[in-house]
């Protein structure tokens, strides 16, 4: 019961608060257009009827939560998942490139961190470039990457996932540099007294010590990967994926569909971050950590 009280209740409280704010915002934002409609139709509805109308427009400025929920439910559970109107289908397309990019990004991040920790020249030279890489607006870079790769015959999943890689290697590299440097001086001295080789120090001390840092940064990286995958779908004429769904809906002012695609994206993000967290905790447990 403690778990319910400690974690679920606070989260639900915030959620209820958000829904209330959302409804108020929906009413306020949709009101001018509704007033316009009513004036042209010569109607003068009462307050309650007016509010009801603001919350049931077909293409509202701000869709109400129940509209989004209905659309989300319909497109998630009531359609075949192979249909290109199914959110599950689009989420899967985005998820696959997210995961591929995340794997590349994590591997690249770890590689860079190992280089930085072991090679003084890389330590001095690489970090400013890594930081600079993240200041470039990804929305501007993404189409160039995809066009250039298409020109040399690489299309499909790989170019999209490279955008995810570009965003996700950064937190892993930074976290792992910190993690690989986290062993205490005493532990390093201890290895020195055993005359341990550099690779023994790396595998027996630096790597296990860096594991908590790795999972903390992988949580950030997996969310960044998803953002990368969605952004990569926006400017490139992708026909499937949460990003392309967002774009198509915005072309046709299907605001409700836009929002339910957004919700689908957040749910995928939540699942990914939770999954990394669970794997992290399992690894932690298997490494003898004190149960929290």
């Amino acid at each position, binding site marked *: 019961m403690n778990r319910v009280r400690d974690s679920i209740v606070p989260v639900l409280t915030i959620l209820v608060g958000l829904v209330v704010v959302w409804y108020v915002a929906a009413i306020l934002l949709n009101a001018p257009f509704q007033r316009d409609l009513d004036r042209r139709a010569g109607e003068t509805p009462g307050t309650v009827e007016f509010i009801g109308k603001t919350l049931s427009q077909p293409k509202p400025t701000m869709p109400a939560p129940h509209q989004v929920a209905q659309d989300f439910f319909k497109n998630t559970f009531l359609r075949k998942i192979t249909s290109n109107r199914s959110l599950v289908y689009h989420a899967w397309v985005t998820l696959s490139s997210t995961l591929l990019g995340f794997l590349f990004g994590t591997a690249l991040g770890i590689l860079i961190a190992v280089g930085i920790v072991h090679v003084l020249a890389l330590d001095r030279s690489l970090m400013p470039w890594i930081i600079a890489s993240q200041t470039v607006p990804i929305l501007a870079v993404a189409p160039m990457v995809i066009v250039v790769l298409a020109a040399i015959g690489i299309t499909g999943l790989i170019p999209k996932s490279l955008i995810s890689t570009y965003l996700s290697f950064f937190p892993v590299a930074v976290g792992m540099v910190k993690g690989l440097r986290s062993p*205490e001086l*005493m*532990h390093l*001295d*201890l*290895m*020195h*007294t*055993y*005359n*341990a080789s550099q690779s*023994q120090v790396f595998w*027996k*001390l630096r790597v*296990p*010590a860096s*594991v908590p840092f790795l999972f903390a940064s992988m949580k950030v990286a997996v969310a960044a990967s998803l953002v990368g995958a969605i952004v990569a779908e926006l400017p490139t004429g992708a026909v499937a994926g949460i990003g392309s769904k967002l774009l198509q809906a915005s072309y046709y002012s299907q605001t409700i569909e836009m929002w339910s695609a957004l919700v689908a994206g957040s749910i995928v993000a939540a699942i990914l971050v939770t999954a990394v967290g669970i794997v992290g905790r399992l690894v932690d447990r298997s*490494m*003898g*950590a*004190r149960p929290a």
Partner: protein
Amino acid sequence: MTVAEAKAQAGTSVVDAKNLGLTFRTNDGPVQALTDVNLTIGKGEFVSFIGPSGCGKTTFLRVIADLEQPTEGSISINGMTPQQAREKRAYGYVFQAAALFPWRNIAKNVALPLEIMGVTAAEQKQRIARVMDLVNLTGFENKYPWQLSGGMQQRASIARALAFDADLLLMDEPFGALDEIVRDHLNKQLLELWARTDKTICFVTHSIPEAVYLSTRIVVMSPRPGRVTDVIESTLPKERPLDIRETPEFLAIAHRVREGLHAGHSYED
């Protein structure tokens, strides 16, 4: 005369320091951590280094262990340079904290030096069992460090230092962080262990009773600059029950250690 003293006099020196000095370069100018240390430690001796913080006792131990390089004089370990001795794994080092790896259970922690030195799995198992018995930790092999008390953790770290059978044990205030009851208990166990293994032990402490109770020789040191002010031979027998600490002989030695600390101005701020 004990066996250890006899061997020491026979000239089998384990540590031999001549005019040893070490100056650290810091941003506030040079700091003389050690000056003109002349000391010979014979095989089988139990030598304590006592003095206030900043007297260089830990630095001297770290010089023996090749964790610091002396800037003057010379030092040899078993007739070799400290680096050669370290490469031959001539000593086990016990730090102020247990310094166990939290992701390894106790048996795996003890196995760490054995893994690094390439000992076979079967041999590892046998040695772990032996040293775990030496420090009375049999049965705790599969526990993780956080599941053990501070005293037990420190015993595990001693087991780790014993696992690869170095003849020299360097201990840097190993019981400094423990309460007095646990410390008494571990002092007794350490003496028993020393008697059973015939190792040479260098032991840094800032507790006078601990130094007198454990040692065959007590090196009194003093700060600014770090130096040896007195070397006291213990007249206590090798067999030492805890209540030996109330005998006049014990108190006389403790008094001399205190005098030595006074002479080195160790009590001034």
